[in-house]
């Protein structure tokens, strides 16, 4: 198998008259962190959902680790279990403790024995620094803690790739750091990540490449250094300038 984990080709998505994605293509290599940036309403979240087919694209193809997952014959549930997803508003299962949130996929999707699943779930919770919160319910956790549990939930499935949909946008500023720290560590450990985010500090210091999207198309794609210092498109420079001013560079 090649080093290519994810290949996205010519993805189109319409919501009624509105064309949200107008032909998106890019690739993510194993161990790479790519950050997708762009104004809101540009289709970044839709793009992530088109990748794991939570929102099936109208047109286009997606390959995961060499398997064409837009093929109607593939078992999409099985594919999804190998793509982690972290949501803006966490979406932890509200009736389950932190431990059960992480464990349920292992037991009900991977059909792992309870003891084995528990050990693994505990390990992932410790990995995100929440070994002492295993019996807390989501409502008893801070936003930052909830998001770390949701990262642990994704990690437990041993994914080939994790999609992050604005993982820090719903957090109070003082809680952003703890989530970014977990993500930075994952990047260092070689997890393959596709991150939609406004955290320019994270993008700049962690991303191998940044994709700048606007109005449903990729305007520019390149190494952070290149995009920040000499963007090819005027629009990229404007956006980066504005967003850095707005959000600062937390998470460095």
């Amino acid at each position: 198998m090649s080093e290519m984990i994810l290949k996205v080709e010519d993805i189109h998505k319409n919501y009624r008259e509105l064309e949200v994605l107008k032909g998106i293509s890019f690739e993510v290599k194993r161990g790479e962190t790519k950050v997708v940036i762009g104004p809101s309403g540009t289709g970044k979240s839709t793009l992530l959902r088109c990748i794991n087919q939570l929102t099936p694209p109208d047109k286009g193809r997606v390959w995961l680790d060499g398997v064409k997952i837009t093929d109607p014959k593939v078992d999409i549930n099985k594919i999804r279990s190998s793509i982690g997803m972290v949501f803006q508003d966490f979406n932890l299962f509200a009736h389950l403790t932190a431990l059960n949130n992480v464990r349920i996929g292992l037991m009900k999707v991977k059909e792992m024995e309870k003891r084995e699943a528990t050990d693994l779930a505990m390990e992932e919770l410790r990995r995100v620094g929440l070994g002492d919160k295993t019996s807390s319910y989501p409502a008893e956790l801070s936003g930052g803690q909830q998001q770390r549990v949701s990262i642990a939930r994704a990690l437990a499935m041993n994914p080939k790739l994790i999609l992050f949909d604005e993982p820090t946008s719903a957090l109070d500023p003082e809680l952003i750091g703890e989530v970014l720290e977990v993500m930075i560590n994952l990047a260092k450990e070689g997890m393959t990540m596709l991150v939609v985010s406004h955290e320019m500090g994270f993008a700049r210091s962690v991303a191998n490449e940044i994709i700048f999207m606007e109005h449903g198309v990729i305007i520019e794609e390149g190494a952070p250094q290149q995009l920040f210092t000499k963007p090819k498109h005027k629009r990229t420079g404007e956006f980066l300038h504005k967003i850095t001013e707005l959000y600062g560079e937390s998470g460095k």
Partner: protein
Amino acid sequence: MNFFELAWSILPALLRGTVVTLEITGISISIGFILGILLALGRIYGNKSIYIVATTYVEVIRGTPLLTQLFLLYFGLPSIGIMLSPFLAAIIGMGLNSGAYQAEYFRGAIQAVKSGQMMAARSVGMNKFKAVRYIILPQMLRLVIPSWSNELIYLVKYSSLAYMIQAPELMAQGKVIAAKNFRTFEVFIVVAFIYLVIVLILSKILDILEKRIRIPGLQTQAV
């Protein structure tokens, strides 16, 4: 015979009726529970034809009187050769009826579960069935308890309609006794009292159940 002596003397017969009332209520709420969940799931997750069937069922049942439905089952069906005992007609009629009402409570509670829950379940790799079974239903059942309690309490009292099709439940027993001793007022005071006690006990049990399975952050807003 003063009131208390009378009450004491008719109590055994009334309690036999109470047992039937509880049986009718218990069986029909259970039939309605299963039917209600299937109808609610059909209306929310079903394809178009399932949706139409489930919706039509709910509308027809809720749009016609329970007594009419009971009469159709008990007095109407024999004309096409189906004879049901009063008890059977009562539990079928009330079960089918309660199913339509419970479906609406369940549907509301499923829709009160946050939409991100289904998405998160699917993103972990659960198919739709597993997502409903392990994520949506456990939350729905907790959210639905307050409104579902109402349905159970209504049903205890509506089960009295079964006396109209000769089921020997509490109300029917009262009627028989009153017809013999002509002390209608006292007899039905005792009957009413028994219904009240049943309802109070059930309310308390549901209250305890709701508290016991309560999960922080997962309850309907203040009653």
